[in-house]
């Protein structure tokens, strides 16, 4: 990891480490990523129906580039856990989360995914954040599709500010420090 700057790439006045090239590269990568967040719908119960409604024509998640529901974890970016997660199901959810490639995000859609909702019982995990890290929690039972779209927009904002390229090895080499 080089500490100094490559003078050949020294482009004018820069306030961020790595220079304007790297920030431009980051913004290009982030723009591509955030407008094509492919969800992996972990549709466990009723919230899956509202997810389907969000993907249908009235609410149209396709406007945000996220209609490509990929059930294969290796092709998905964001796992939307929609529904109640029981202990029996936990293994599958965790396994699929582990198989997703970086960068990956998790949206806990609905009260059941966030905190088990109305089910304080012997077979329901009280929130999926016990086994997968959650980026956004959507309250509601089920949340309206607009709320899912809101979470998606917030996630897009966050992805837009991500240090996608600057975090990679190439970016670290070209920049000074992370």
């Amino acid at each position: 990891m080089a500490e100094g700057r490559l003078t050949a790439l020294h482009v004018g006045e820069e306030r961020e480490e790595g220079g304007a090239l790297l920030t431009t590269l980051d913004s290009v990568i982030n723009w591509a990523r955030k407008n094509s967040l492919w969800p992996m719908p972990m549709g466990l119960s009723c919230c899956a129906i509202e997810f389907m409604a969000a993907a249908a024509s009235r609410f149209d998640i396709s406007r945000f580039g996220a209609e490509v529901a990929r059930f294969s974890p290796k092709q998905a970016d964001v796992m939307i856990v929609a529904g109640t997660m029981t202990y029996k199901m936990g293994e599958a959810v965790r396994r699929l989360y582990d198989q997703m490639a970086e960068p990956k995000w998790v949206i806990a859609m609905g009260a059941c995914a966030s905190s088990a909702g109305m089910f304080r019982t012997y077979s329901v995990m009280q929130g999926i954040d016990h086994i997968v890290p959650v980026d956004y929690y959507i309250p509601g039972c089920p949340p309206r599709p607009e709320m899912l779209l809101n979470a998606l927009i917030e996630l897009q904002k966050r992805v837009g500010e991500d240090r996608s390229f600057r975090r990679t090895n190439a970016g670290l080499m070209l920049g000074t420090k992370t």
Partner: protein
Amino acid sequence: MSTPAPATTAGFSTSFERQKGPGGEEHMILNMGPSHPSTHGVLRILLELDGEVIVRAEPDVGYLHRGMEKIAEVYGYNKFVPYTDRFDYLAPIANNVAVVSAVEKCAGIEIPERARMLRLVCCELGRISAHLLGIGAFAMDIGALSVFLYSFQQRENIYNFMEALTGARFTVSWTRVGGCARDLPPGWVDGVKRFVKDFPQRIERDVEGLLTTNRIWVDRLKGVGVMPRDVAISYGLTGPSLRASGVEWDLRKEQPYLGYENFDFDIPVGEVGDAYDRYLVRIEEMKQSARILQQALDRIPEGPINVDDKKIVLPGKREVLTSMEQLIHQFMVVTEGPELGPAERYFGVENPKGELGFYVDADGTGRPRRMRVRGPSFMNIASFPYALKGSMLADVVAILGSFDFVMGECDR
């Protein structure tokens, strides 16, 4: 138990032992689910394959078991109604009606005429809604995505009506023991009438026109997943899956409830019991539901929507704030619940997926001693070892979609 046992391989795989084929070749075991686009929920099926042909199929359920029956014993009758939304979550209002109908039948409560008609109207709207999604998701699995979008468009209309009536698009929790929670908003009946008037033509144009005589659709569904009549009865199948197998059994006609005997409608019955018959039965049921609605919407009487028994139904706010006795009734109904029984009865209604039945064991308090939920999808899924055996791997998706089950009902 205090500590979990270490992860072992004990379980299905030890009982699901590979068989050897006639030539001595080993069969392949394929795991389908629980996260799978075409299993319509968290269902896991273990398939033993001889090439492309399924030799043995075993469903593994319980991935959505939320302990609803235990909840009913702890929470009571009225507080259980929101949980019933989550059984068949494609038509939540039908489950609400089912549970309070069972409790009222067990306890001998007669609800007013207006409440009965409103419940009937909502049940039929729920039936249309559930079949729309069933067919839409089924078509999407087979590959016809447009049908999914068209049917969801119609479902959004029904969501609008539900939202106007109950406040929620989807999980409505609208009924209570003794009646309904809210009355109709003005203009609701006219809106539903307009929807129902051109609904059959829309179905014919958007869904049937794309699917029923479609060569690909027919080829994929005809002869697939055949359930003969006696096998279907022995497996306890109910609903459209049973009627597609040639059994003319619909609880709305055989054991009428909510006043269904006063309406004119037909029961579609299939011939062969394959996936195509199950699809046709659902399409025709939607049209018959529209027919019932056209009759029912003109016959909603005026009157109260709750029975006039203050020990069961919450009294009105004005009475609660001015009369001591009503205040006490309100307190008791909210904290203890309507005290019913001792009585026991089984009661089933014709839900979109089949017979949703409740065995209510009321012991005199506001909480049932046992509220057994007979979910139709549990039996439908229990018949998969028969339905899937001998079919090809690609037919599994067609068969699962044609049975149109919901895991919320199966696992409860």
